[in-house]
């Protein structure tokens, strides 16, 4: 029930599509209400948008393998605080991490009607392995022209995330979306955070 309510809310609120698969099949130039008039041929980029704290973040769809309701997660003692544990996703046992904890982002108060026990996991495809990233609200899919992504954002000092991890800043309507490069986040630097 909770999930459906939430889905309906989001559809009304955002110019995005809920069904990732459908979005991928949709012609790129279609359905982006927020887009201004644009040249037809412009290259499009497909993002999965989610919320950390009060801000919107996104990952390019090529880096996302699937989106699931977070499965039962087994806590792993003596791992960094942002590692929520390990979970069994179709026989693969993968690490589940929380980016709010990773980047010290203060969690936003939960929206009314949202079940705090129901979260979503983006399964990110890294080099030779997968990792799960939990988010509290259902991620959305968004198509927009590549020109909408500012490659060199100069005003990100307020954000806790190192600019190395940020691919750019997308603007759509009144929203700002920070586009992350997950592959950079999951490099050796990240692992060094782990005790060994």
């Amino acid at each position: 029930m909770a999930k459906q309510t939430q889905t309906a809310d989001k559809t009304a609120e955002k110019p995005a599509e809920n069904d990732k698969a459908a979005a991928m099949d949709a012609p790129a130039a279609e359905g982006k209400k927020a887009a201004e008039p644009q040249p037809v041929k412009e290259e499009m980029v497909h993002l999965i948008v989610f919320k950390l704290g009060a801000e919107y973040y996104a990952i390019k769809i090529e880096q996302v393998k699937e989106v699931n309701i977070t499965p039962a997660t087994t806590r792993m003692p003596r791992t960094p605080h942002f590692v929520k544990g390990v979970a069994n996703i179709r026989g693969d046992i993968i690490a589940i991490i929380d980016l709010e904890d990773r980047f010290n982002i203060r969690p936003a108060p939960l929206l009314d009607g949202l079940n705090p026990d129901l979260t979503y996991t983006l399964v990110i495809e890294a080099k030779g392995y997968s990792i799960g990233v939990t988010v509290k609200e259902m991620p959305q899919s968004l198509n927009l022209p590549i020109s909408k992504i500012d490659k060199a954002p100069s005003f990100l000092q307020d954000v806790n995330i190192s600019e190395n991890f940020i691919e750019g800043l997308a603007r759509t309507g009144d929203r700002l979306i920070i586009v992350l490069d997950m592959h950079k986040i999951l490099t050796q630097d990240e692992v060094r955070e782990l005790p060994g």
Partner: protein
Amino acid sequence: MKSREQEYKEIFIAEALEYFDALNRHISTLEKQPDDEQTLAEIFRLLHNMKANSKAIGYLQISDVSHKLETAFSLIRNKELAFSDEVVTVLFDGIDLLGELITNIDSNQEAEPDPVLLRNLDIIVENLSDSAIELAKVQKYNTSKNLSLSDLVYIQIKKLDHLMNLVGELMIDRDRILSISKDMGNEELKTVSSHLYRITEDLQYSVMDARLVNIGSLFNKFPRIVRDIAAAEKKEVDLELIGQDIQIDRNILQIMTDSLLHLVRNAVTHGLETPAEREKKEKPRMGHLTLSAKSDRENVLIELADDGKGMDFKLIKRTAVERHLITADAAEGLTEAEVLSFLFEPGFSTAKEVTEFSGRGVGLDVVKNAIDSIGGRLMVKSEKGKGTTFSMQLPTSIAVKGALLFEVDEIFYAIPLIHTEQVIALDKDELHEVGDVMIADLKGEAITVVYLHELLNTDEHQMRLGDKSRLKGQVQNIVVVSYNNRKIGLIVDKLYRQQDIVVKPMSKPLDRIDLYGGVTLLGTGKVCLVLDVPATTRYFMNRRQAQEHV
């Protein structure tokens, strides 16, 4: 499909490598008993086959060298050539060359035999080896010998690894189905799933079996190696091999290769005394080295025993104190087993001199790490003046292990049985707070006990490993584990059964956390963490020290 040529080639190489190992073994025997007719006949037969086979398949260099060696041995057999030191050296070099030529068949690199060596062989064969002609010194072409296992398994081990992984996955799903079918109570499903159980079990054992090789394929390389090290060290060594037909997983044996080589080198160089020293101690001149293997259902035990001078306990203690591994006072009270466990500390070596074969800056810690990495156990016993024995307890298979399941703070854990000593239940009153830890008395043996919940889940700054008041309930379930000659009791919340588990490696980036050896899926679909006993022990020692410094 493999072509027939390819098949012939593989058979030829496998057989030739077998012959090569056997030749090395026999010629070492011959050196001690030059008149042994049977050994001579056997060498002759092996060289004869090598010659005929290589000629048939078209490896003419091999057949040429075999022919020369065969001729030399027939001269020796007919007493037309003396088995003198110079001759022995040339023959050893010739056999080494054969080995190199065989190994190079597959690497496609054309090894040009050393012309000096070929000339030396010719000199011997033409029976010109009187004092007038000096046998030229051959440049040793392989200064550091590498051991490689014979590939008698005609399938890439990678493929068997893959097969083993698939079987592991299958077993996990099988257990899940079995558990579901019990819950559903459907008789037909129960019958099918118990049949599935038996089949997968058969499959598992078949795949494990396909990966087994004779331990002799490694052991048989040692007579020659021991002979070479002993010659360089001017020692006399008699190597006894036992249990060559014991079977073990090929990958485990591969991982053990360097460790065993290292231990054998150490034994000859540092363990055994020189003939003169031995005579002074009224020991036989010839040092005795035993390399043995035996197996039970779960494990293979490899032992290397020497009858040399034994470890110098005083020197080990002194070094440990110098290295600040322990205080001088505490060192006094250590048991012998505890003293010996320092040997496995990184870089710890009591060798005074670094000789050509031993030392080389590699310590016993490297051996220990190799054995830890496959979930085995390394133990050492030593008696001053009598000798030292290293025991290596190894799993027969890497992927499937017997394990003990338990629960701590609602998380499932498993510990491989190879590390568990016993399981006991003790009343809280039988645990004593001593210093910063808890101690239990197990039939006269004082054992450090640690509450796993405290060790794993309490904030490190608030951790109090010696505080009994943190325990829940009156009766405590304790799993006694042993690592590096130390026993530790782990208090768990709930104890479950023993069962065979399929250990999956931890996925990245969590594979860097060494507290866990991997994960496994239980029949219920729940994830179970496999605790790594060496790392857990180290973590405990580390926290205990941190407490002391507070």
